[in-house]
């Protein structure tokens, strides 16, 4: 079974690499062939597939002929990368932390108020609103955002390779992806559970309110009957 899946992955990888190589400019054909040759050295089909998927951007970045003064696209990307470095990294981390703090404050203060108002007037909230409320009630929205923050720190930190001991902290690409995915899944599942609980609670509350109104009406009828000395209708 494993061999079949591996073979399938190798086939897909071969097609992807051929697709990418066909889109590379003929003047750069050597690089497409180099890419394919390296893939052919790998024994694992999954390794080839990963190599092929990672190479897909070449279909765009190498589609033009090389320019005498350097590839304009690559220069632009390099300039963008350099602008994003160092101080800009710290700046974007600060902005993200600020946004996370805002969401935390919003979850802790505004969301419960909104829920109380909704419960008071007895209107049903749409599913996305219930999901957000459920997540914020359980503190999972905060967990999820924390995971995303870790991912951001990791991606920015990678640019300062050698400064942050990321590998020693076990923050490899796969670990961060798994963490983010686990956080996302847990967040969605728990939010749905919490949303269902809040639906049940609001149904119960509505039923209790209806019962209480019925009781009040009955008491009022009894009082009226006593006041005018009328026969009381038997309890149904």
């Amino acid at each position, binding site marked *: 079974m494993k061999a079949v899946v591996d073979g399938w992955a190798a086939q897909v990888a071969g097609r992807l690499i051929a697709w990418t190589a066909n889109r590379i400019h003929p003047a750069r054909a050597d690089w497409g062939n180099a890419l394919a040759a390296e893939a*052919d050295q790998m024994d694992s089909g999954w390794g080839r597939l990963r190599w092929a998927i990672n190479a897909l951007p070449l279909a765009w970045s*190498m589609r033009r002929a090389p320019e005498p003064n350097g590839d304009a696209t*690559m220069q632009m990307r390099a300039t963008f990368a350099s602008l994003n470095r160092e101080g800009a990294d710290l700046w974007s981390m600060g902005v993200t932390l600020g946004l996370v703090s805002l969401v935390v404050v919003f979850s802790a203060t505004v969301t419960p108020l909104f829920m109380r108002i909704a419960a008071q007037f007895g209107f049903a909230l749409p599913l996305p609103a219930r999901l957000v409320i459920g997540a914020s009630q359980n503190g999972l929205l905060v967990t999820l955002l924390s995971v995303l923050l870790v991912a951001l720190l990791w991606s920015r930190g990678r640019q300062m390779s050698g400064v942050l001991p990321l590998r020693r902290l076990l923050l490899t690409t796969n670990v961060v992806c798994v963490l983010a995915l686990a956080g996302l899944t847990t967040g969605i599942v728990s939010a749905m559970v919490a949303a269902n609980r809040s639906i049940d609670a609001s149904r119960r509350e509505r039923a209790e309110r209806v019962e209480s109104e019925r009781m009040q009406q009955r008491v009022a009828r009894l009082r009226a009957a006593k006041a005018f000395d009328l026969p009381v209708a038997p309890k149904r």
Partner: protein
Amino acid sequence: MPREPNTSPQTIRVLSVLLESPRDWHYGYGISQRTGLASGTLYPILARLADQGWLETNWINSEVAGRPPRHTYRLTAHGVRSARTLVVDAKVRTRGLRPLLDRGS
């Protein structure tokens, strides 16, 4: 803002790996593994370095029979000189950042 060429962190990583043994030929897959760069990032860097005359390329037969020849790379003399300067500059820059990051942690 125009930037000095070949000073992106990714290029510095590639140059550092090539500088470790400048006379040897390096494979693309090996460089990718040692730098942690994906193939889609690595090959444009190698192509640019080759266009600029920093890198020479060569096709050599695979060590495993029945597999296609592999493209290999090594720095030219001009590439070695320029890369050494850039890598040293990059180390000085990251050392400048270290106290800031240490204070943050």
